[in-house]
C-alpha cells in the first residue's frame, strides 16, 4: 500500500512553514509501514489526472500567487477537476485555499480566477488577520479543536455547497466576521491554519491519510500512533493562544 502525495507549487506556495504538513503525512505513513511517494508539481508542466491520492496546496506571497493562478488554469485545472470529482483528497491552506475557490477579488484590477472546486470566494480586506487560531471542529467531520496560526488579508466567504471546517474559539478565521474557519466538501478541504496545521492536529492528519488511502485502495484502517509530543504541542499552543489573544 502506498500513498501518493502531490505537492502543488512547492517553491512558490510554501512561505509559512507549510512543508510541515508534507513531513507529517510522510512520517505518519512511514511509522505505520505505509509507503509514500511525493510528487512535486511545478509550474509550466501539464498535470495528468489519476496519479495523485492526496494534493497539498500551501500559501505563497501575493506576487507568486498571481503567477500560480495563471499556471493553474493553463496546465493543471482539468486534471484537478477530474481528480476532485473522483474523490482524491485535497488539503489547501491560505493562498492555496483561495485558489481552490471560485475567485479572488483584489483591491484593484480584475478578479483572479480560482479552479472552483470549493464553493467559496475571497475579497481583499483592509485589515490583515494575524495571530493564533483555535477552532471547534465541525462535528460532522471530527471532534475536538484544531489549532493554528493565521496571517491573511483576504476575506473568504462560504457558499451553500460547502461546510465550514470549524467554528472560531480564538482568532479571525475565514473573514473575521461570521466566526467560521475553513471550508470542506467531501474530500476537499481548505483553511487559513498555518502553524503548520497537521503536525499539531494529528487526528486531522490521520483523517486525510485514511481518506486518501481509501480513495486508492478501498477500505483501510490506520493503526494508532503514540502522539504524546503532538498532543503536548497542540495543548501548549492552545494555552499560548488564550494568553496572546
Amino acid at each position, binding site marked *: 500500500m502506498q500513498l501518493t502525495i502531490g505537492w502543488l507549487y512547492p517553491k512558490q506556495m510554501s512561505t*509559512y512553514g507549510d512543508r510541515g504538513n508534507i513531513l507529517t503525512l510522510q512520517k505518519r505513513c512511514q511509522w505505520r509501514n505505509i509507503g509514500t511517494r511525493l510528487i512535486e508539481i511545478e509550474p509550466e508542466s501539464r498535470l495528468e489526472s489519476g496519479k495523485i491520492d492526496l494534493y497539498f496546496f500551501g500559501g505563497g506571497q501575493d506576487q507568486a500567487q498571481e503567477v500560480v493562478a495563471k499556471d493553474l488554469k493553463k496546465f493543471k485545472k482539468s486534471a484537478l477537476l477530474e481528480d476532485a470529482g473522483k474523490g482524491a483528497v485535497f488539503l489547501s491552506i491560505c493562498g492555496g485555499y483561495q485558489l481552490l475557490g471560485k475567485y479572488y477579488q483584489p483591491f484593484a484590477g480584475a478578479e483572479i480566477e480560482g479552479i472552483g472546486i470549493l464553493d467559496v470566494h475571497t475579497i481583499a480586506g483592509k485589515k*490583515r488577520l494575524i495571530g493564533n487560531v483555535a477552532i471547534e471542529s465541525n462535528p460532522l467531520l471530527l471532534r475536538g479543536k484544531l489549532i493554528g496560526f493565521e496571517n491573511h488579508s483576504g476575506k473568504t466567504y462560504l457558499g451553500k455547497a460547502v461546510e465550514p471546517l470549524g467554528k472560531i474559539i480564538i482568532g479571525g478565521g475565514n473573514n473575521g466576521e461570521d466566526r467560521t474557519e475553513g471550508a470542506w466538501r467531501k474530500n476537499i478541504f481548505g483553511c487559513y491554519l498555518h502553524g503548520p496545521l497537521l503536525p499539531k492536529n494529528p487526528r486531522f492528519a490521520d483523517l486525510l491519510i485514511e481518506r486518501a488511502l481509501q480513495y486508492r485502495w478501498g477500505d483501510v484502517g490506520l493503526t494508532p500512533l503514540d502522539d504524546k509530543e503532538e498532543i503536548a504541542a497542540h495543548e501548549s499552543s492552545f494555552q499560548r493562544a488564550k494568553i496572546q489573544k
Partner: protein
Amino acid sequence: MDIRLQTALLSAKASRKLLRRFGSGATAAPGLVAQYIDKDSLRKLAASYPNIILVSGTNGKTTTSRLISAILEKAGLAHIDNREGSNLTRGLITSLASYARLSGKPKEQTAIFEVDEAALPYVVSQINPKLIVLTNLFRDQLDRYGEVDTIRRLWLKSVENLDSATTLLLNADDPGIASLTKTRAKVVFFGLEDPKLNLEKLPHAADFINCTNCGSVLNYSQVYLSHLGAYRCSKCPLTRPNPQVSAGEIHLNDLKGANFLLLAKKRTITIESPLPGLYNLYNALAASTLGLQLGIAPTTIKTAIGQFKPAFGRTETFVSNSKKIFTSLVKNPTGFNEVIRTVFSGQDKKVVLIAINDLIADGRDVSWLWDVDFEPLAERAQKVFVSGLRAADMQLRLKYAGAASERFDDLEEAAEHLLAFAEKGETVYLFPTYTALIKLKAFFAQKGLTANFWED
C-alpha cells in the same frame, strides 16, 4: 538649535538617566519621548553628521555594523553608532540624543546605524546617508514584517528617491538585493567568487527563486546559501552583476572562523576572520567593501576584522561553570539553517539547547521552524534540550526530523540541565530566539560572567 528640539533632547536625556538608574537598558523610550515632542527629531539630529552609514537586511545587520565600527576605529575615524538604542527609528533617536550636546556640533563626523528593514524607508527619507549597505533579504517573522516581497517593494521605492550623493553597497549574490538599482545613487556590488562552496541545490527556505524583472525561474550555477549565489534568468537578460569587491579562496574553519581573499581592483589581501560560517563571511565582506569605499587601507581592514569580538549573542562563546557556551541567536529559517550548517560541519557529537519563545520580538508565529532543515542536527547531536514558551512545538519539529529531545519549559531549568550534562571544559551549543537569549544571558550572568548587553 531650535527650542522644540532642545526640549525634545532634554526630555530624552532625562528619561534615559532615569531609566538607567532603575537598571533598564533604555533603548527605545528616550527616542519615543523626543519624537513625541519634535516629530522631526531624527532629521534634525542626524543633520549634525555629514557621513551617515546605514546597514540593513534580514540577517547580519548587527555583526556587519559592528565590523564597520571596528574598521573605522582602527582607521582612527571618530564615529557614533546605535548599539545603545534599538534599530528602529526611536532607537536611532535615542542614540543620537545621547550623543548630542545642547550647544554646538558633535565632534564626530560619522555615524553608523544598523536599521530595521521595515524602518529603513522612513530613516532614508529623513536623513541623507552617505553609504547604505544592504546585506540580504530572507523570510523573517512574517507576522511582524510581512512577506519578503513587501519589504523589497518598500526598498525599491526608497532607493528611487536617493540622489548621487549616496553610494549603495549591494550584495550581488542576492537577487532580491542586486536588483535594487533603479536609483541615481552610485552602486557598488560585493559578492563571493568561490565555486567550491556550491550547495548544488536551493534549500527549501530560499525566497527569491523567480526573476525580479519578469517572474520566470532563475537558474543557478552556484548556490552559496539560501537563494544567494550565481544566477541568471531563464527568459530575460537579468543576471547576477559582477561584483567590484569579492571574496575568494574561502576556507571555513568550523567554529574557529574563516579566511578569504579580499579582491578589489586587482588588489588582494587575505582576511582572517574570527567569525564562523559563510553567513558571517558575507558580513565581513560587506564591512570590508564599505571600508575600501571610504578609502581605508586594506591592511587596516584586515587588522580590524582579525581582532573583532562578536556582538551580543551572535556566535559568541562565553564560559560559565567551566563549560564553554557557544551562543547563536536564531530568528528565521535561513539564519538557523546556516548556524546548523556551521556548528554541525564536523563529526563530533554535540550537546544543544534550543530555546524558542513566541513574544513579539521573537515573532509570534513559530511556523518557520518547519522551514528549517534540522536533519544535520538530528544526525549529529549527542543530546538536545528544548525550552521556551514554544518548547513543545520545537520538540515536535525535532520528532519529525528524527531527533529525540528532552523538554524543560522553564528556561533556567533547561540551562541548569545543559550545564549539568556537559563535561568540564566541554563546549555546549545554545540556540535561542531573541527574548529567550536575553533571559538566558541574564541567568548565565547571574552565575558571574557577562555584562548586560547595553554595556557590551
